[in-house]
């Protein structure tokens, strides 16, 4: 009787401890979200005062077009209107001044991206350890990933903390930051779908794709379309990347077994169907931009350039810029290339980055928009995918680091990651001056 009572007491105590721990962890996650909001809100308010800043352009030049009289002109100028749309709702429905509305909108999207990344890590920990109680680490990693920037050292003659290196978090740009959360969702959903197509008994890590696959195909199509409404540059990169990924799978499948190849072709077709709404919208945007002269004038068009012609305007050494912007993912690749070349998640990450990189190196807009380097945005999205996958891989490598040598290798990796985070903080500080 006594033992039973004691056991019950102990169990109750353990439950209380666990709940208390969970509450503390959740509190930390909320603290990170608040700090992120503070950073983003301050950046927006500070950047609005600079006439050439992206926030100033989007809020004081493009946003005023969003009225009943100029709605078509507004769409023609900014067909990716998700950020502007939310500002519009906050201003007109809640009567919030536009500067504050812009700040709140950016905070909303920043917290959304942070929440999505945190959820991804929770699912990963659940997959590795079998429970998702490691939310403290998930929150920390998500917060760090929300601010990381390329490593910037005075010793190098790079244009600035962002220009020249570029990064997965262009915090000075409202639309690129707006697409990040949706992009991560697209990535993990695609991963689950791709795994499900390859293995019949696959249980989804992030979504329960095994239960009702059709629903998730539709969800992917919606997310891709939503991403084009936020900023089309992610879909421009990602659809092509998934296409290349599936083509490679199709070739290897057909090479092994023709029947399997035919079966896999059906999956490729399904994925293509998912991308149609987004592709149609991108086509519509292209017609608007390059035929109807939606933004600036009809004189601009997409052109092929020599290798890195646009990038070299901002950087004297593109290889060095790549290394500084991607030091952590490159280190993870160096530690375990098999992950990026053999697994679905790794392959999706690296192909996304390479497709983005190729677009940045070889594509540009002609005319006055040549120096705007707008094809760097797909690369920024590709960097985000590669960064996410690299951090996931690092978390998994950490689990394997049982020997001293492996542990040192993993710690070096986290050190590089911390350097990126520190540079992110310094970049935020610079944006606030």
């Amino acid at each position, binding site marked *: 009787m006594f033992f039973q009572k004691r056991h019950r007491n102990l169990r109750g105590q353990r439950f209380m401890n666990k709940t208390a721990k969970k509450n503390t962890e959740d509190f930390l996650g909320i603290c990170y979200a608040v700090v992120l909001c503070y950073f983003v809100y301050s950046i927006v308010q500070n950047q609005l005062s600079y006439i050439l800043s992206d926030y100033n352009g989007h809020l004081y030049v493009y946003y005023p077009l969003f009225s009943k009289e100029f709605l078509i002109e507004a769409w023609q100028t900014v067909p990716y209107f998700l950020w502007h749309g939310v500002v519009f709702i906050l201003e007109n429905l809640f009567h919030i001044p536009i500067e504050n509305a812009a700040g709140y909108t950016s905070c909303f999207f920043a917290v959304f991206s942070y929440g999505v990344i945190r959820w991804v890590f929770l699912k990963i920990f659940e997959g590795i350890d079998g429970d998702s109680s490691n939310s403290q680490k998930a929150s920390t990693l998500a917060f760090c990933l929300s601010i990381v920037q390329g490593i910037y050292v005075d*010793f190098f003659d790079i244009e600035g903390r962002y220009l020249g290196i570029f990064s997965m978090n262009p915090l000075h740009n409202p639309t690129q930051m707006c697409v990040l959360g949706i992009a991560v969702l697209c990535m993990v959903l695609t991963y689950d779908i791709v795994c499900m197509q390859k293995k019949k008994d696959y*249980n989804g890590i992030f979504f329960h794709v095994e239960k009702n696959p059709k629903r998730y195909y539709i969800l992917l199509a919606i997310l891709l379309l939503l991403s084009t409404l936020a900023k089309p540059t992610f879909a421009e990169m990602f659809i092509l990347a998934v296409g290349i990924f599936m083509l490679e799978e199709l070739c290897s499948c057909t090479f092994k077994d023709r029947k399997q190849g035919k079966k896999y072709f059906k999956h490729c077709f399904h994925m293509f169907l998912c991308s149609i709404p987004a592709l149609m919208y991108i086509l519509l945007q292209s017609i608007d931009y390059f035929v109807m002269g939606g933004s600036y004038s009809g004189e601009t068009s997409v052109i092929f350039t020599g290798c890195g012609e646009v990038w070299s305007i901002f950087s004297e*050494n593109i290889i060095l*810029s790549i290394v500084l912007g991607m030091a952590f993912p490159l280190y993870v*690749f160096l530690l*375990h290339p098999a992950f990026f070349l053999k697994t679905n998640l790794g392959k999706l990450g690296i192909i996304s980055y390479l497709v983005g990189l190729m677009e940045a190196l070889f594509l540009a807009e002609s005319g006055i928009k040549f120096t705007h380097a707008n094809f760097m945005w797909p690369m920024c999205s590709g960097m985000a995918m590669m960064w996410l996958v690299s951090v996931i891989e690092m978390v998994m490598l950490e689990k*394997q680091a049982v020997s001293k040598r*492996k542990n040192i290798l993993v710690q070096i990796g986290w050190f590089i990651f911390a350097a990126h985070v520190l540079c992110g903080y310094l970049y935020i500080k610079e944006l606030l001056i």
Partner: protein
Amino acid sequence: MCVICSIISLLVPFPKADVHLKIYFDEIEGNECALYYETEDTEGYAAERCIMADVEDNTYVDFHIEASIAEKITGIRIDMPDTGVEQLICIKNFTVNSAGIIQKKFNSCYFLDPIHISGQHGISGISLVKVRKRAYIRCEEKDPYWILSSDLVEEIKDGQSDYKLTRLGILLFIYGCCFSWKKDVFSETTQKFEGTTVYE
């Protein structure tokens, strides 16, 4: 075979990088500075061999010398802004940047030492404050410039990169990846996600 290819790729002549000569100021008035150059084929500082550069934020000026010119350069003349009034310019330092790296950093007292100046015009005096590592130039109303000595020009030319470090870095990364692939240090255990192996 791979090692031989690597050594060849390191030793083979590679197109050289552009050179950026940057001058950092503490005090300056005016919008533009100019750099005139002489090459092996051409003598004299003529208008067709002039590189103009804006004074950015009143703090520095960046002369972009193209790789083909930097290779042949034999003489450099630096012109300060033509403001029409006398002014005292305070120079912090000079850097030679190439291939995205600061290859050389010159103390202003070294750079403007009389032995490194082969000629000057419109400059009534140069004071070198060695303890503060600053050089002050008193410029007259019109056309202030000074000509660098040939030794200093050679030193600047030495700063031109041929991307050797970048090439070495790429090779090391490729070798590192191959080594890591062969050793497969981190693939002893297979991680499991909800019953599905991640490492196929």
